Each structure stands twice: as C-alpha cells, then as structure tokens.
C-alpha cells in the first residue's frame, strides 16, 4: 500500500527531559521520524520540552515547539497548527501517555486529529497490564500468575493468594518506576503504597515471582498488510529480576534452539496482532524457565523503545525510521533496506557478529541509595560493543564504560571465594567483574551458577577469558600466537600489559612490531549475503578488513561515550552538528562512539561510523585504518565532553593532529596552578583558595581564607565529592566520610576554596578564533552559586545583570580564551559576590549549555565552532551568514526569555529502608536532564519550565514553609504575596511565629521530631494535603526534619523549593498560572522575531 495522500501535516510528540528509563534514544528515534516525514513532503510540527535534543533544532521540523508536554499546551499547539495527525509512538512513554490524555479529554475528537503509529485501542491493550494479560492467555501463551489491585487492602488479599516473594508493578509507568519485590507484609505495604502513587491510573499489578529465569526480548514491526518481521532477539545475561535496562544484554540470543526461538517468534506475532499494532514497532519481553523451557510473557511496549534503539544499532535495521514510514501508510516490502540498497525492509536481519550492551550507573552520586539492581531501572546510560564473538564484544563493552574497575582484571584481590560467591547473589553494578574474580580464585562454574542463575554458557565464556589471561601470563614471550588469541577475545593492550607487568605503550609497540592490527568489519543486516553500501564498522582481529579507501580530506569526531550524570545528550548534540557542518564543508566525517542511544551512532549521521570504545587504543586503531588512504586533517576532541578531551594528550603524543584548542592549551585551563597564572595575567580574581593533602592543612587553609569553604578532591568530574563546609566540625566530618573513597592524598590533594555566599552564578558559552570572541550567550543562574551549574535553573538573557556586568563577563571571557589559546568553544563560570567578579572555572570545550543557547537565541554555536576548528575565522562566518553579525551578548528590547530547568532523579533512588534519598541541591551535579521554558517574560517562561519539568505550579492550594534562620528575613516578601494570591500558608512553629509577627497568618504544624497530637507535616505531605513545599536546609540539628520533609515531598511528587532565590523567582509565575493557560510560539517564530529586532 503506497503512502497515504491525506496526511499533509503531522504533529510529532517528543519524550521531554532525559530521565532514568527514558534517555536520548528518543532523540534518535524522534530525529529519524522528523527526517522521514519531511523527506515525504509532510509538514512536521514538533513538541518537545528538551532543548538539549537534536530533534528540536529548528531545521528538523517546520514548526518546533519547545513547550511543556502537557495536554493543555498540546491542545494550544493543535488549535494553532491544525495537524492532520499525531505520531505518539516515537516519544517514549511520555508521548504515549500524552496521546492517551488527549484522547480522554476529547481533544483528538474536537479537532479531529488522527493518531498514527498506534491506535488508542492498541495502546490500551498493550499498556494496561490487566487487559494485556488476558490477551496473552487468549493467544494461547502463558503469563506469570498475577492480580491487579487499586488499593492496599486488595494488595494484601492478593498476597495471600500468590504468596511471597511478590513482584509489584504500577500500571502505565516507564522504566519500572515504583516497582519492586515484596518479601513480607512490611515491604508490600511500602512498595504498593508508592506504586499506587506512581501509577497515573492508581493501579498496581502483583505477580508470582519468576526470579532467576532466562529473560529475552524480541523487537517486531508490523505494517497495514499484516506483514510482520522480527528485527532482533535480545538475551539478558542477568536473569529475570534485574530490569532489562539494568541488565547486561546480548544480541542475537545465544542459548536458544530454533524450536524455542520460533516459539517465541510465533507468540510475539500473535500478540502484536491481538494488540493491533498495525503500523509500527513494538517489543515483547519473555521469561524462559531454564529447567523445562516454560515460556512466560512479561510485557510488551506498543511503541519504539530503548531496546529498539539498541536493536537498530545492533542490526543496522533503523526501526524508528521504518516505523515512521509505516505510520504514513507504506508497507515493509515497499521500503528499501538502505544498507544493501537492493533488498526490501520486509526481512529479518542476520548477524554474523555479537553485540553486547552494558548499563552505566551513577550510584556514587547518591551514597545513601541502595545499589541493589531490581525491577526498577536505575542506570543512567549504556554502552554497546560489537565483536566477532561474545568474549570480544563483552570486553570491548566493559572498557567502553570508562569507569575504573569495570573491566576484568587479574591482580590478586583480598576477597575470599566464599565472600565473592555470597556477594554475587545480589545483582549490583559490576557484578560481572565479581563473577570473573570468583572464577579466577577457583570458584566452579556450578557454584557461580547457583549464586547468580546466569546461564552456564555465559559463565563459561568468562572461564575462557580467565584461561586466556593465564596463557598470556605463562607465555615465555608475548609472541603473535599468544597476542592473537588474547585480541580475538577482546583483551586490551592495557589488560595484557597488566597481566605481563608491562606498560600499555610497551605492549602496543610490541604488537605493532609484529604487524598485528585489528581489521574492520561491516554491520550489513545480512551476514555478508549482499554488499553493504553504508560504512558502519567495528573492529576485530581477523583476516580481512572492509574499510574502503577514499581520497578525501577526513575529520575524525570523538563522541562522548555513555550517558552519565554530568555528560549526556548535550554533548552528542554538539558532535552531531560538527558532523553535519563539516560534511557540508566538504570533509569526510568519521564518527567514533559507543553509545547506542545517540544520533551520532546513527549510520545516517556521518560519512563513516565506527562503533568502538573511546579508549586511546581503540581510537588510534580507527585512525590508523583511515590513514591508509586520503588525508587525515585532524581529530575533534572538544565536543565529546571530558571523554574526548581526555584522549587529546595521548593522540597528540602519537602524532595525531588535534583540531582546535591544543592539548597544551587544554592543560592551561584544567591544571589549577597554570590556570591561576592566566587569571593573574588577566587581572582576574578566583575565590581565595589553597590545596591540602590532609585534615590539618585543610583546617589551616580554611582558617586563613575563612569559612564557609567549598572542598573538592582534584581530578573528579561533575563536582564529585564536592561540599560546602560551614565550620571546623563539619570539615572534620567531611574527612571522615570521604576517607573510604581514598580520593585525597599527596598525588591528588583536596582543593579548598573560599565559598562565595549569596553570589550570583553566571555561565557563558563563546567561540574564540584566535583574534576575536563571539559570545553565544550569557546565562544567569537562578539559584545562588553553590548549586552545581548543571542542577540550577538559569535564564537567557540574564534578568538581573546590568549591561555593564555583562560586558565585564564578556571581556573577562575574552582575556581567558586568549590566555589559554582557545580555538573553538569555551565555557566559563563566574560568580558575582557584592559586585566583585570571580572566575570559578573555564572549560575549553563544548559545554552542557551549548544546545540551550542555540535554541534560545537561534545561534548555531556547535556548527560555527567546528568550522573555526578547521580554520575559518569568525569574521568569515558572519560574512557567510553562518553566524548573526551581533553576538549573544546583545539583547534587543522585547526579546523572549528562555529558562532552563534541571530535572532530578531522586525519585529513582531509595535508601536500603526504602525511603527516597535527600532531594537537596548542592555543588555536586545530580540532574539527569533539562527542560526549557521560553516566553515573552520571565514569570511565564519560568512557569513553563516548571510545568515542563513535571512540577507545575498549582493555581491554588496549600504552601508549606520551613526555612533556615538565615533565610527567614528573605522569605517574608514572597510569602506575603503568596497569601495575597490566595494560597493557604502552613509553617513549622519557628517560621510561623516570625511570619505572624509580620502580619502573615500561617497555620503552624508539628515537625516530625516534635511530639504532640495532630498530624505532623510529613503526614500531611504524604496524605497529599500540601501542594508546594518551601524548605531550605538548616544547621545539622534540624537536618533530620528537613530530610523527612523533602523525602516525603519527592515521594508525593509535589513542587519543592530548596532555595529562597528559586521561590522569589517563582512568585511572578504563581501569578501567571492563576491568569490562565500558556500561549505557544515556535522556535522558528522566536528566531524570526529576534532577526527582525536585530534588523531594526
């Protein structure tokens, strides 16, 4: 059936901010969808509140709305744009849920817009675990025994029926939010309590436990002619009980016979038919009892998912792209397979390699959190690796994680076999290494199986790896035979060096001298049956390489590796733009990255794609392979975050040209001593500071520069271990707590800075070409300095800074860029305390805020920067129109205001006793994503940003206030206003007293700690009787109460203000939401406005 003629315009719903369980894989799918629809001549309207995405770049849609993904806002967009249809299946659970509410509110009907990709009925059948269960049984397949409950009482009855342990899952949530295992009444009460909360429909599903079974996932597509294909089978190495998103997984499935596999395939096809997904993709999860092969269907997602992104990268079959084509009427046989060019998409990819995915966790950011892996997804990112066998792919994946200790090692540990066998019973981050260690110390494969239930085949592969390590150790000399075997099974030069007691470089040069280099194979969807047109490569050690020589000028772009807190989609954004810009400029672009969720690892993005770990060894090999032909102009390292930047030195040392800012220059910014020289020469101030290797020195410095001080270990990212210390005792306490991590010592001293109280923090992103500075934008933080730039909300343009101050920031940045010798992007963070400008840090690379700036002002920073890196001057770029003539410091009157708000994952992390971790913000970054609100004035923009971040301000209701003494004076004004606006004010005794003294009547409520009758504030919050919470942290005494309050608020999902700055900023926004619904405006319109304003 050819494309539908009746679809002229389609509204695509994005997935909003990056959160755990829903990351940039939906930027990948959404970007593909937008591309496809536009190629088909359809007008694309896009709504997505996440500015860091590539899909929200104005040139990917005809009308791009960076607005909150709420039914009200979407309705305004529909009313304005009148799309023929809505495509909700490529924006994750967010888009699917939005579509559901649009339907339930009758909006779809009202404007008669059609849902394409999945019909309401299919969404219901797939997502509602109860309906789905019945449908599976009707299809003749089996499910785990289960009962749906909408109340705690029902839960207890069900428990009696099913027995403990029990699996609890809320309906309609993503990434297993709120789900978990109940082993007894206590846990059942707790988990079901939050589960009923988490479910938009207030339902939880209790199921019989199938812990320890083998888990599989199939990715399917179906078209209007009822043609079905299974794109990929994925097997979880971690058995059932660990969320797929947190499991090490492998494709294709490796431990199924054809009979068993075809059975899963048949069930899947029956289910996709029964559910009625008829123009798109879905994934179905299975559990298989290893003892008798009993198959149980776990769930299905009637949409493109995280695993479909993985499956697309693993097979070369672009699921999202094809889903979009199916949605507009094409059938699978009408869509060509781009990789072969000659065959249609109506086939099932055949792999002649093995793909392994390993999740990346961030528990170090939440020390209080329980690090056990459960049915609630906790990983913040993932890596994928491709090898010609499992051991090779696994080892490549483990080193792609860029995390100390994540790879197998062979130096003797203190641990005993018994303790390891005990430890691996509990799934955690890095269990696979514990398994390897246990086997190394002599545990038998059987013992490891008994502890982990990991399939014996996967365990044997680790036995094999240990055996080879032993051969490497035993070998009289490292000859080509030994090396060949080690390399065939994925050993890195570093690992071999460690085993042989050599340096990595020594192993490498030895390997070179033996002429032993990897070859590069191609991901071609067909196991070599047809020639592949797309150069999508992975390395292995074998006979024949498939890299096609080319005579062009080449640029290698290093990606940013796995998503993690502090380094996410924003960096992929810059890499992808560099790739586009440099191809347009005539270069052959070569992308190296190992993150399957990203757009950069889409084979469509760059001229050549190498899916490889971002380690020096692996990158050097790609460069070597590409250097055989054509001319390597250089490597771009400043866009891929610290990952890419960290490789600069090694590449330079190996004689590889680095584009843009030189490694030496990078050092000037990163090395404290050198940087302070630069500041001195530029007559700029840094906060008073010193370095200490022990408590005594730290105390001495603190006393000299004065408390409060900000302490942080050197060489850590994202503000790890960074804290504000107000007095001597707390400093002692800090040393006690940090001791275990061994972060501080002679080699790596503690950095002690004077902490700037009530300072305004400023971020600036700019490009320097050696002669001139071009500012992308100056951002003013809403929270005062002390809240990590990644976690604080900020505005562009600044709302309180004078143009004089902005000018000072600008010229300071210019001096620093000049001093460092930047060629390309630079990000500087300043703080202004009683009108003195301090430099906090300078990053000679793309920053997290580059995409935000680009969206807010319509300045394509990343593009311009990459052209500067290859020698263009800013003057030229202005002349060619790649950059507006006036830079981001110039704000014409009436410009729109953009507010960036961070989105935090506290709700994902519970402590061992099941309560949420503290939601306090600090100098250590914890947010996983961000949203943008943009409008004519700050209050509206801020209100939008709050709504987009999922904590919309209420039009009316109860606001609870409890602030530290030092904050009490500042809180008066805002609270008085809130009362005038008609909100009910609730406060703890102390705060209430002060408020009433100032004529603000506040009902006082009992703290958790203080005895007395009547409900405590925590009870009220839990009961949902409080709509907004204002709580600033006070001295350690009342800390406990503060924590209880914030934790309860997080659990109840209510807006919380932990700084007065935020609250004061929000007042206007409260007024705004009372006024009525938001108006919407596309980015295209906004940038036109700006252009017109500048023209005047």
């Amino acid at each position, binding site marked *: 059936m050819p494309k539908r003629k009746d679809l002229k315009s389609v509204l695509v719903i994005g997935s909003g901010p990056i959160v755990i369980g829903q990351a940039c894989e939906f930027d990948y799918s959404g970007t593909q969808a937008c591309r496809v629809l536009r190629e088909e001549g359809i007008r694309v309207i896009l709504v997505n509140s996440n500015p860091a995405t590539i899909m929200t770049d104005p040139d990917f849609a005809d009308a791009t709305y960076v607005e909150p993904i709420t039914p009200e806002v979407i309705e305004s967009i529909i009313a304005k744009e009148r799309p023929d249809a809505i495509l909700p299946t490529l924006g994750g659970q967010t888009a699917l849920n939005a579509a559901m509410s649009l339907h339930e509110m009758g909006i779809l009907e009202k404007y008669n817009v059609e849902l394409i990709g999945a019909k309401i009925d299919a969404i219901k059948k797939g997502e509602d675990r109860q309906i789905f269960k019945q449908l599976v049984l009707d299809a003749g397949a089996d499910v785990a025994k289960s009962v749906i409950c909408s109340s705690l009482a029902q839960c207890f009855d069900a428990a009696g029926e099913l027995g403990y342990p029990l699996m609890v899952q809320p309906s309609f949530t993503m990434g297993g939010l709120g789900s978990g295992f109940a082993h007894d009444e206590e846990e059942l009460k707790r988990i079901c309590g939050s589960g009923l909360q988490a479910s938009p429909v207030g339902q939880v599903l209790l199921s019989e436990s199938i812990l320890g079974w083998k888990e599989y996932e199939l990715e399917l597509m179906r078209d209007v002619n009822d043609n079905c294909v299974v794109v990929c089978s994925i097997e979880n190495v971690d058995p059932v009980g660990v969320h797929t998103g947190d499991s090490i997984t492998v494709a294709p499935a490796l431990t199924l*016979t054809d009979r068993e596999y075809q059975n899963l395939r048949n069930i899947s096809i029956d289910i996709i038919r029964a559910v009625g997904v008829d123009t798109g993709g879905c994934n179905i999860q299975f559990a298989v009892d290893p003892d008798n092969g009993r198959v149980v269907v776990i769930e299905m997602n009637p949409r493109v998912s995280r695993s479909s992104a993985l499956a697309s990268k693993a097979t070369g079959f672009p699921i999202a792209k094809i889903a979009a084509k199916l949605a507009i009427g094409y059938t699978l046989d009408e869509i060509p397979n781009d990789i072969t060019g000659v065959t*249609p998409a109506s086939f099932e990819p055949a792999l002649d390699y093995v793909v392994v995915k390993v999740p990346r966790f961030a528990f170090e950011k939440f020390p209080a959190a329980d690090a056990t892996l459960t049915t609630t997804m906790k990983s913040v990112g993932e890596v994928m690796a491709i090898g010609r066998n499992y051991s090779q792919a696994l080892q490549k994946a483990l080193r792609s994680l860029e995390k100390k200790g994540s790879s197998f090692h062979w130096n003797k540990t203190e641990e005993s076999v018994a303790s390891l066998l005990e430890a691996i019973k509990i799934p955690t981050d890095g269990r696979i290494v514990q398994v390897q260690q246990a086997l190394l110390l002599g545990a038998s494969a059987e013992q490891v199986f008994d502890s982990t239930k990991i399939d014996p085949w996967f365990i044997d592969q680790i036995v094999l790896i240990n055996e080879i390590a032993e051969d490497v150790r035993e070998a009289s000399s490292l000859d080509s035979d030994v090396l060949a075997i080690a390399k065939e099974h994925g050993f890195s030069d570093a690992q071999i060096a460690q085993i042989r007691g050599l340096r990595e470089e020594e192993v490498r040069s030895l390997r070179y001298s033996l002429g032993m280099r990897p070859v590069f194979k191609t991901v071609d969807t067909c196991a070599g*049956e047809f020639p592949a047109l797309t150069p999508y490569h992975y390395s292995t050690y074998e006979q*024949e390489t498939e890299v096609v020589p080319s005579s062009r000028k080449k640029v290698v772009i290093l990606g940013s590796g796995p998503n993690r807190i502090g380094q996410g989609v924003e960096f992929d954004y810059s890499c992808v733009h560099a790739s586009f810009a440099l191809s347009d400029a005539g270069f052959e672009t070569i992308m190296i990255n190992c993150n399957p969720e990203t757009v950069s690892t889409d084979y469509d993005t760059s001229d050549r794609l190498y899916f490889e770990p971002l380690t020096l060894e692996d990158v050097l090999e790609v460069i070597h392979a590409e250097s055989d032909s054509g001319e390597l102009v250089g490597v771009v390292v400043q866009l891929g975050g610290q990952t890419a930047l960290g490789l600069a030195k090694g590449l330079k040392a190996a004689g590889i040209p680095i584009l843009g800012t030189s490694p030496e220059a990078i050092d000037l910014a990163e090395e404290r001593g050198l940087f302070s020289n630069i500041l001195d020469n530029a007559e700029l101030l840094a906060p008073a500071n010193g370095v200490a290797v022990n408590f005594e020195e730290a105390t001495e410095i603190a006393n000299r520069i004065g408390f409060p001080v900000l302490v942080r270990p050197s060489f850590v990212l994202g503000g790890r271990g960074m804290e504000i210390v107000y007095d001597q005792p707390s400093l002692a306490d800090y040393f006690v707590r940090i001791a275990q991590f061994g972060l501080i010592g002679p080699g790596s001293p503690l950095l002690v800075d004077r902490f700037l109280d009530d300072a305004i923090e400023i971020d600036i992103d700019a490009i320097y070409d050696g002669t001139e500075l071009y500012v992308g934008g100056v951002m003013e933080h809403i929270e005062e300095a002390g809240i990590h730039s990644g976690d604080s909300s900020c505005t562009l343009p600044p709302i309180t800074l004078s143009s004089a101050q902005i000018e000072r920031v600008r010229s300071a940045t210019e001096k620093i860029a000049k001093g460092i010798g930047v060629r390309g992007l630079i990000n500087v963070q300043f703080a202004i305390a009683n009108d003195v400008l301090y430099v906090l840090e300078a990053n000679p690379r793309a920053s997290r805020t580059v995409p935000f700036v680009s969206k807010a002002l319509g300045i394509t920073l990343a593009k311009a920067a990459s052209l500067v890196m290859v020698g263009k001057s800013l003057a030229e770029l202005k002349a060619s129109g790649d950059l507006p003539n006036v830079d981001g410091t110039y704000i014409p009157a009436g410009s729109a205001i953009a507010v960036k708000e961070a989105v935090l994952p506290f709700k994902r992390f519970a402590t061992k006793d099941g309560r949420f971790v503290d939601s306090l913000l600090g100098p250590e970054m914890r947010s996983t994503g961000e949203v943008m609100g943009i409008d004519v004035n700050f209050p509206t923009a801020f209100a939008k940003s709050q709504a987009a971040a999922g904590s919309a301000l209420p039009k009316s209701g109860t606001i609870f206030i409890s602030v530290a003494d030092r904050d009490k004076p500042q809180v008066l004004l805002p609270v008085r206003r809130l009362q005038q606006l008609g909100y009910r004010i609730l406060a703890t005794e102390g705060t209430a007293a002060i408020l009433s003294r100032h004529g603000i009547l506040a009902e006082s409520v009992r703290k958790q700690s203080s005895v007395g009758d009547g409900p405590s504030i925590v009870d009220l919050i839990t009961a949902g009787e409080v709509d907004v919470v204002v709580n600033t942290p006070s001295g350690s005494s009342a800390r406990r109460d503060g924590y209880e309050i914030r934790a309860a608020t997080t659990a109840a999902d209510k807006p919380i203000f932990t700084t007065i700055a935020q609250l004061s900023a929000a007042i206007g926004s409260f007024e705004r939401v009372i006024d009525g619904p938001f108006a919407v405006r596309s980015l295209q319109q906004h940038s036109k406005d700006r252009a017109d304003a500048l023209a005047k």
Partner: protein
Amino acid sequence: MSKAILVLEDGRTFTGKSYGKEGVSLGEVVFCTGMTGYQETLTDPSYAGQIVVQTAPHIGNTGVNSTDEESAKVWVAGYVVRDASRIVSNFRSEGSLDDELSKYGVVGIRGIDTRALTRHLRDKGVMRGGVFSGPAAEKSVTELVHEISQSAPMLGRSLSSEVSTGEKFVVEAEGQTFGKIAILDLGIKDSTIQNMTARGLEVHVFPASTNASELLAISPDAVFYSNGPGDPSTASGQVDALREVLKAGVPFFGICFGNQLLGRALGFETYKLDFGHRGINQPVMDRTTGKVEVTAHNHGFAVRIDGGPEVESPKGFGRVRVSHVSLNDDVVEGIECLDIPAFSVQYHPEAAAGPHDANYLFDRLIDVIKNNRKAKNA
C-alpha cells in the same frame, strides 16, 4: 586440537583448527545465514555433498537432541564455523555437536574468518572446496587444489538415490485419517512428514527410483515430491514420472527440489544461482494474497519462467503462474498450475530451521485435495 585448512577451488585458503572428525571432506562450499537451527541444517538431506559455512559466529551452544533431527543422520560433507561452543547449555540437550560431527564422520574446521569466506563466495559464486585436517593438512596447496578439481561438481550431479529411503515405508495419520499421500523421497525432512500426518494424511514414502504407476498404485489423494540435493536437470526419471501423475489429474505438491522438478515437468528450464539462497530470513511475496512471508531457503538451483503473470506450459499442461517470488532478487519461489491441481514452492514451508510463516501451504494442499474430490464427485 590439530590444525585444519579449508581450500577453495580457486586456490584461496583459510587456516584454522580441526573440528569434528579429522581427515578430508570435499564438496560444494556454501554459506548459510541462519542464526539458529544448526542441528536441523546438518540433518537436512538437501545439504548432502556440500561443505556448509555458518555465518553465525557461535555454533553448538545448545548441543544436540533427538527431537530436532530432520533425518536419521548428518548429511553435510564438511562443516565450517567461527567459534565452536566449549560447553552445552540447554534443557533439551543430549550431547555436544562436536561429538555428533565425529560420530557421523564430518570433517570440519573452526576458528577461521567465516565472513571473509562468505564475502568471497558471494562475489565469486559458490565453488568446490575441501576441508583437510590431520596428516592431510600437511600437503601443499597445489596438491589440495588438484584433489578438489577431481571431485564432482554440483552442476550435473545426481544425489537423490544417495539420500532417498531404500525401502517404501508408511507413516500413520495423526488422529482421524483424512486421506493418503504418496511421497517421492528425494531427501525428505521429518518435519514435512509431520506437517502432513498432523493434517490427517497417511503418508507413503517411496524411494527416489519409484515410477508413476507404483506411486499411483496406492490411489493417493495427492502426490508429493520432496526437497533434496543435486542438479534437477539430472532427474529426468522423476520428471517423466511426474508428467504421468499430472496427466492422471492427481493433485500434486512439491517443495524445493520438488518445485524444480514440477517446473521441468511443465517444460520450463532450471538453472544454477551464483551463490544460492541459504538462510531463514528470506522475504517471499505470495502473489495470491499480496502478503510477505519470511521463509527458510536452501537452494542453489531455480526454475526460470519468463513473461506472463500467466504463461502456457510448453508441455501442454495449460496455464501456469508464478505464485511466489523472492523480494530480494525476484527468483521464482513458487509455481501454480491454473488448469490442473498442481502447485509447488522453492522454499521450505516446513521450516525447521526457520520461521513458520509459510506453514499455511500445507493447508492449501488439503484444500486442493478437497476441491479435487468435489470436482470428481460433481
């Protein structure tokens, strides 16, 4: 494990380790892209005389078991894999693949760049080759290439008699008997028989040499020609028999080799494909329904039918249409006679290994039989 070497007719060699039995195996080297079902592949008689290269890197993980065998023995001449499993992990497994290969004297090789080999065969076309291990591996390449050039080429090769049953045998229908089918065994697979008995057919399996009158002697409701190895142009005996069956108006169904023989019986040509279709992910369009099915293929030859949606049978059997085509390369994948009750497919509706999408074809067989009965009674 001792050294082994794979040598191709054109002199290209791949050195690896011995797998299965040590010694020499000669045959046509073909690649198979299925990611599951190695045991079904090995026991599929159609692979007789061939050295099979598995493109999937890990082979043997689930061991072997008696239920997944497609015939009484392993038929491949030689076997080529990337990574042979060290252990067996599956609840149905009864033994390791390594032992199974040794037991049936299959000389195999492991640890070679199977992708390089596959790409070579794809570009140059399938060719003869040999796997040599143990003492044989020590000979010079020229000697080995010579040995290979002495072996029989697939073109013009007749293997039916080698794989066919020696004695006629009968398999009872499951449950209620619906009818009787006479099968000419050119290398039949167990799952084909199971698919028929499951539909109430009493199955009579005859040796490849059986002539038409013997087949028709049991007055079957239908005659079936199975899949099997070799060049269809050598099967003139079976083709003559088939013409008589068609003249007798008895419904006919054929799979794979059987499809090629129907083609020839109707008077069309068969030809050798450059590197054949061997995999379980092949898209085929059923022109009757316009639907795509993902199917299991294993054929090096195909029927050539030009022109038409409908063409006249050169041998006077009326109108013939191409009912199924490969969406990858437009090869004829199915034939349907419009004036006599006969049809056949080039691929494998019985799957094993492979997707079950085309299983409906066995129901079509039943329908053809029913309609034919109606026609007679009317």
